[in-house]
């Protein structure tokens, strides 16, 4: 009896997750189709989303970027000094940020700040029948509600990552040069010497992919909040979907970071 129940639960879970994956896959295809299909967007729709997803995230990105760079500068200087290689600090900080930490931490910050807001907004629209109302007005919610958020996030993510990288490099400079007394020219020359276009390219590709992942997962979780297994209705349902969207996006960013790195190295 126990085994039978276990098998039933296992099968039930399997079907649920396959269903959810299929639903999210179709959702992504529909959004991409709607992005490419005319009529195109009023520029104000996109700029409003860029403001809310991109511009409003700048402060948190600068803040985290600065401290990440400073920690890298501190840890890097202490480690490198053991091998008398302090001169490599600039390139160590820059490469760590541009290839890995910049795209990943920016994606995690955007997930926490904007991704959760996207999921909650769409979830509330679903629960208060606003999505249904759009469909009944023959206005495709994929195009009207979701697509502008996709475009804005995919455009904002590389820009935010660049800001994160630049601020992080300056944070490393403040610690390495300002506090530890490393030569300013050495810091920047090692960076200039070792950072190649391929590194920037990898960081750029990662930030684009992470932008897509974050907005896809967060939008889909909000859009299908009514299909959540433990009931997606009411404030509690939206809160549960938002938590799950943030967790899933964060995990997906880390998993895809490994996959993209292994493909591009």
């Amino acid at each position: 009896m126990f085994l039978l129940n276990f098998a039933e639960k296992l099968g039930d879970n399997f079907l649920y997750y396959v269903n959810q994956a299929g639903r999210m896959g179709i959702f992504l295809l529909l959004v991409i189709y709607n992005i490419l299909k005319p009529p195109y967007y009023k520029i104000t729709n996109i700029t409003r989303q860029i403001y809310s997803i991109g511009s409003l995230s700048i402060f948190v990105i600068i803040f985290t970027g600065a401290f990440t760079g400073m920690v890298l500068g501190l840890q890097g200087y202490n480690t490198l000094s053991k091998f008398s290689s302090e001169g490599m600090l600039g390139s160590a900080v820059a490469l760590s940020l541009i290839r890995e930490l910049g795209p990943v931490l920016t994606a995690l910050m955007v997930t926490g700040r904007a991704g959760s807001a996207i999921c909650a907004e769409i979830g509330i629209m679903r629960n208060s029948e606003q999505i249904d109302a759009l469909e009944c007005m023959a206005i495709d919610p994929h195009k009207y509600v979701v697509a502008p958020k996709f475009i804005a996030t995919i455009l904002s993510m590389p820009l935010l990552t660049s800001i994160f990288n630049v601020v992080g490099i300056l944070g490393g400079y403040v610690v390495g040069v300002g506090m530890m007394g490393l030569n300013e020219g050495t810091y920047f020359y090692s960076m200039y010497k070792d950072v190649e276009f391929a590194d920037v390219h990898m960081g750029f590709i990662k930030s684009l992919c992470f932008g897509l992942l974050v907005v896809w997962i967060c939008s889909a979780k909000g859009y299908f909040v009514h299909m959540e297994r433990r009931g997606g209705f009411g404030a509690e349902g939206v809160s549960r979907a938002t938590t799950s969207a943030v967790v899933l996006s964060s995990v997906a960013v880390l998993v895809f970071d490994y996959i993209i790195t292994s493909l591009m190295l």
Partner: protein
Amino acid sequence: MEPIIQMIDVFKTFGKQQVLKGVNLSLYEGRTTVIVGESGQGKSSILKHILGLVKPDKGKILVYGKDINKISRKELKDIRANFGVLFQNSALFDSMTVFDNVALPLRERTNKTEEEIKKIVNEKLEMMDIHDSNEKYPAQLSGGMRKRVGLARALVLNPKIVFFDEPTTGLDVALSNEMYRVFFRTQTALKYTALIVSHDVPKIFKLADYVALMHNGIIQDSLPPEDFQTSENPVIREFVEKTMGRIYESEKVEG
């Protein structure tokens, strides 16, 4: 007369609960059909099936002769272009003003200029007696006003078929009477086909050409209001006695 909407043997189960157990219903052009029944009987599910928001497990839903579950998204969108819907909680967009809410279908679905849109929106808001609330947000409106804004938005493209999901729920007697007057006024002016889901019995009978009782997962019968009230169908008779009796008793107590 040929029906413009037909539900044929529609079944639907949500989780472990079978809500629709073979629903058959026909709507006729220019006529008002009211679906009545107790709470939780699946009245709103019928509406969602006809709107194409929920797919049935079994059965057909024909709108203008087309099975809406067997057509493409594009064709469904074209069919929905004939619909106007007033949702139970109005489903207004909280971040938009009353004007923008009503203007939305015009901006997204037509190529009208802002000047033309302004004229049409003001005309509809005038029809609903809420023309002085243009710049307000839904959160600043009373329940009755939200319903009227929702109706203005539903009617802004002059749809052929309008669906009302519990149009008077949450409104007091005066406001629900006002809502019925607005319905009567707009239907006379725009001559749309209406499907109303309501439990406001017997008041709603005054608006209906046909009354359908939803009970136990099926439509028991769809009859003109006079015939409905004198029907020999035991389920309908029980429903009429129950609802009318309740009103009679409450009047007696108040009296």
